[in-house]
């Protein structure tokens, strides 16, 4: 019993990191309908920037983190402004390939600058301490990630639910031309969305880097976040979070009770099953095309 609870708790803990990545992906998907493969690297670059700030310029931790977040915002905006917006007559697959290309560029730049060595990001909270609730452990860093993910999710959810801008973002995604006809500055909206998404992602990065920091570190969380977002329904923010937690918990339960080897793929199998029942994910409304 303790074991089961422990697995669920730790599943939720790792799910939080996935959730942050998933939220970032959903944001961008909502704005531009692109499954964003550069999400991981948009988070990676700011993490290394914060490392650089601390290591080479001796910035204090908080300043380095603030710098990283600011950089993430700028990076996201720049990517949208300088690249994605320039796509001529884009189709979805073309945009996906562009994000893959950007992913390579950013990854290349980071590895070029920092080499392949593994490092560990200085962080005020030790990743090896843990909180014990009864017999259940949760590492302090995981707990922090969980809290941060929930806070960010709540803010984003409220924003989309109750602000006009949130609806405008949805409108932009569904029919950009029509959105422009409403006077919505779709370009600006998309740009800001990319910025915010990069920020959300880099929070995940900053919370993962204290353990191991290396150029490929965001790839796995990105995929899991993507998977979570898809299970939740690519257009639903709460969906992304629920999906990510689902992925985390399933992984842990499966790893604990069935087979650790298949732990990392079982989530995908479950996803396929979920999608067979609900083709647009758990929380997104399914919309039957009307002819």
């Amino acid at each position, binding site marked *: 019993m303790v074991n089961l609870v422990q697995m669920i708790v730790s599943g939720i803990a790792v799910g939080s990191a996935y959730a942050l990545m998933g939220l970032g992906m959903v944001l961008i998907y909502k704005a531009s309908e692109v499954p964003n493969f550069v999400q991981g690297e948009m988070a990676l670059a700011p993490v290394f920037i914060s490392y650089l700030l601390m290591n080479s310029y001796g910035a204090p931790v908080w300043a380095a983190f603030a710098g990283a977040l600011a950089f993430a915002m700028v990076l996201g905006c720049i990517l949208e402004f300088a690249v994605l917006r320039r796509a001529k007559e884009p189709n979805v697959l073309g945009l996906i390939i562009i994000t893959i290309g950007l992913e390579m560029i950013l990854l290349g730049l980071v590895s070029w600058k920092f080499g392949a060595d593994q490092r560990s990001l200085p962080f005020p909270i030790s990743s090896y301490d843990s909180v014990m609730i009864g017999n259940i452990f949760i590492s302090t860093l995981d707990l922090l990630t969980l809290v941060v993910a929930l806070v960010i999710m709540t803010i984003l959810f409220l924003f989309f639910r109750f602000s*006009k801008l949130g*609806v405008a973002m949805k409108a932009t995604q*569904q*029919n950009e*031309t029509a959105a*422009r006809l*409403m006077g919505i500055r779709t370009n600006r909206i998309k740009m800001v969305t990319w910025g915010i998404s990069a920020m959300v992602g880099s929070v995940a990065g900053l919370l993962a880097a204290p353990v191991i920091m290396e150029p490929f570190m965001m790839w796995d969380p990105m995929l899991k976040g993507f998977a979570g977002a898809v299970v939740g329904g690519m257009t639903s923010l709460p969906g992304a979070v629920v999906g990510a937690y689902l992925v985390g918990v399933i992984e842990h339960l499966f790893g604990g009770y069935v087979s650790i080897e298949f732990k990392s793929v079982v989530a995908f199998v479950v996803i396929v099953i979920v999608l067979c029942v609900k083709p647009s994910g758990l929380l997104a409304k399914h919309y039957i095309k009307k002819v």
Partner: protein
Amino acid sequence: MGALLEVKNIETYYDLIYAVRGVSLSIEEGSITAILGNNGAGKSTILKTIMGLIDDQPDKGSIEFDGRRIDGKDTEAIVRMGISYVPEGREVFEELTVRENLLMGAYTRKNRKEVAGDFDRVYRYFPVLQQRQNQWAGTLSGGEQQMLAIGRAMMSRPRLLFLDEPSLGLSPILVQEIFRIITAIHAEGVTVLLVEQNARMALKISHTAMILENGRFVLKGPSAELMEDENVKEFYMGVRSQDSAKGYQRWKRKKVWR
């Protein structure tokens, strides 16, 4: 005082297709202008060009709204200046509710009270929309979507309203309804530019009308005059010498102009 909208000799290309071939028009404040024309004549293209929806177009010519050049500006900016456009094929936000669609129409407006009032106004014009407030727009019937599109455009309180085939696919009663609403909107002081296939109705409510063919205007004039024109009668209003299709006569008169 000059015209509200002054289009001078614009030319528009879709890649290699030469769709609008030198069109000028000027719209007086407070008028209803109708553009008639065959399929593919380029009516929609003119509107899209004015709205800045076609990249890098117009290729030539100038467009002035309220004395200011608007060609080359972003669509958003043009909309914010007070032009509203109801596109052909409705283009509602399919996965937003009716209410959210209308809210988006009022996106540029700051005054919440006024917006709330406008919601009521739209619902008064189109009571169906109120019933379907929380339904996704994509699941509305064609006519309902058309009403939504017009309602949405009105939410921004435009000075100039473009309507691209508003009666497309509407039932006769709704066609009359829509035209009544157009006149009502006009009565509130909105200038209207109307692209229509339903020539009879369009000519009836408009002051000026123009006929577009192959990207050029071939006929312009006060609507009342055009209504009397033989060619217009025959080709655009379906008034013809024989009784009906039941007569099985298949002859066609060649158009005289061009």
